[in-house]
């Protein structure tokens, strides 16, 4: 993980990939990446845990670790692909977001998507949009590595370009110099959070299907969303009004959108391969406006669509 951070400061786009236990090990330096505001991508092909768990059978048990795994307060961007095509497309998107917002971006896939063979269309390079970090525009001696402008993201100089900057994992001021002041801590951490949370409109990606007039909305992500879709289609055949909301970005969490939907429906049904990590987040976003039914799976496999269908039937009555 540190080699990835170093490489990014060396001026390249850098990433690494892991599964479960490796993700736990990388938490320390994911925090350093957040604190140094280092663009990079980290893919976690989730397996069932805790510990070595089931190598390498699927789970989605690292979703909260993705959000809160490193110590301290911060925000993060996490993307959850549902197919090999999305692994390709969203990896490009992840790099773009990491460069734009100067933050590590997590690709929270799972062992099914990770092992899956499926058709992938790779467009010609000129059709692919890439984003690179914004470079400083001030004279080198005036450059302050952590002076952000209105979009809250500071321009970034790479090592070896003559800016002679210092960066540290310690709480630091705009010069990058360490400080133990409460004010500097407040200003820095608030900006690290705000640069992501206040740009949700640009970051968040959702897929919505037949949400208008729905009584029940199934909300899921990654491989679980594909299985949920099958259950949703069966439920619709039975005449139930079921919408489908797929979280393509899971973090930052689209709580405003969830809250808006909550007012119009009887319940959310949330299948995920963990014991309810995102379902509790949805519950929080609903402010009690509607029921949230978690459909957990403890990992090693995926849901049987029938289990999700039963949950939909139960709340749709």
């Amino acid at each position, binding site marked *: *993980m*540190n*080699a*990835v*951070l*170093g*490489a*990014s*400061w*060396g*001026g*390249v786009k*850098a990433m690494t990939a892991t599964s479960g236990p490796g993700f736990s090990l990388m938490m*320390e*330096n994911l*925090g*350093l990446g957040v604190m*140094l505001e280092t663009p990079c991508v980290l893919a976690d092909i989730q397996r069932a845990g805790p510990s070595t768990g089931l190598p390498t059978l699927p789970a989605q048990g690292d979703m909260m670790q993705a959000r809160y795994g490193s110590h301290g307060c911060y925000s993060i961007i996490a993307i959850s692909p549902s197919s090999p095509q999305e692994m390709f497309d969203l990896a490009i998107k992840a790099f773009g977001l990491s460069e734009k917002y100067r933050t590590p971006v997590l690709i929270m896939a799972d062992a099914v998507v990770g092992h899956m063979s499926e058709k992938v269309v790779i467009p010609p390079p000129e059709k692919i949009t890439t984003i690179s970090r914004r470079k400083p525009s001030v004279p080198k001696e005036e450059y302050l590595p952590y002076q952000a402008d209105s979009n809250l993201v500071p321009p970034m100089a*790479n*090592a*070896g*370009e*003559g*800016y*002679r*900057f*210092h*960066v*540290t*994992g*310690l709480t630091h001021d705009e010069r990058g*110099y*360490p400080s133990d002041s409460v004010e500097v801590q407040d200003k820095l951490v608030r900006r690290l959070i705000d640069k992501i949370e206040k740009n949700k409109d640009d970051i968040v990606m959702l897929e919505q299907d037949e949400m208008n007039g729905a009584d029940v909305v199934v909300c899921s992500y990654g491989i679980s969303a594909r299985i949920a879709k099958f259950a949703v289609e069966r439920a619709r055949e039975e005449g139930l009004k079921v919408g489908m909301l797929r979280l393509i970005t899971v973090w930052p969490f689209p709580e405003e959108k969830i809250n808006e939907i909550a007012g119009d429906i009887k319940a959310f049904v949330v299948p995920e391969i963990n014991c309810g990590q995102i379902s509790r987040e949805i519950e929080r976003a609903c402010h009690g406006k509607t029921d949230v039914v978690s459909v957990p799976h403890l990992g090693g496999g995926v849901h049987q669509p029938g289990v999700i269908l039963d949950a939909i039937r139960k709340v749709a009555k």
Partner: protein
Amino acid sequence: MTLTLEPVHKMDKLLRSDRMPHIWCPGCGIGTVVNVFLNALIDSGLNPDKVVVVSGIGCSGRAAGYIKVDSFHTTHGRAIPFATGLKIANPELKVVVFSGDGDLIAIGGNHFIHAARRNIDMTVICVNNLAYGMTGGQKGPTTPLDAISQTSPYGNTEQPFNVPYLAASCGASYVARWTTAHVRQLKKSMEEALAKKGFSLVEAISPCPTLYGRMNKQPSGLDQMRYYRQNSVYSDGADPKEAAITYNGKIMVGKFVDVERPTFLELQEVSLKKVFGTEK
């Protein structure tokens, strides 16, 4: 007519004077090692814009914050992998890791041995004060057997690493050790290390009177320096196996290793050429 004297020091260009005073204790040797390093850097003729300094955590880890090149203060033990990433991303850079024995040899020990094994082109400066200074003088991976520390009040019962031997046995291209009482020799070794292709290590035995010295009958920096002067044994080309540091014993100093081995990037280029017919 008034004459205004602008205080100019030859280190001003390479030190962040706006960060002074530094955090190190009176009698500490880290400042000496920084000073020697900057002198070596000036005389090496390297372009400081292309030099990066990476530190981990601890008293020595603060060096990156005072040296005015692109400098990185990273996490505990992780300076070497961070430096590895920088070097691989931009091979033009001269990458220097400046950190302490606890950071490099204990928590960072795994990174240290593999960087030496892979012969990654970097210079590691290991300030070895024989204990953990910043956290209160606990024993560490280099604390001599029988030495007193906060966590070995009756004498250390753990056998320490012999740092030059560790580096040499893992494949380092250049290994030298001096104490802070040997500033000229230390500077020469640092210059050689900076000019060396591959993994180079310069160990600087350095006083920590506040924590190590105080508990081991060398209560001032001067006492420790006197001990170094009286007990250092100079032997260029000696077997690093013999360089273990014993409690209040002799300290073997000199250059232990200076060999040519292909570096990580060189071997990668050879392979890329073989497979693809081009370098990149």
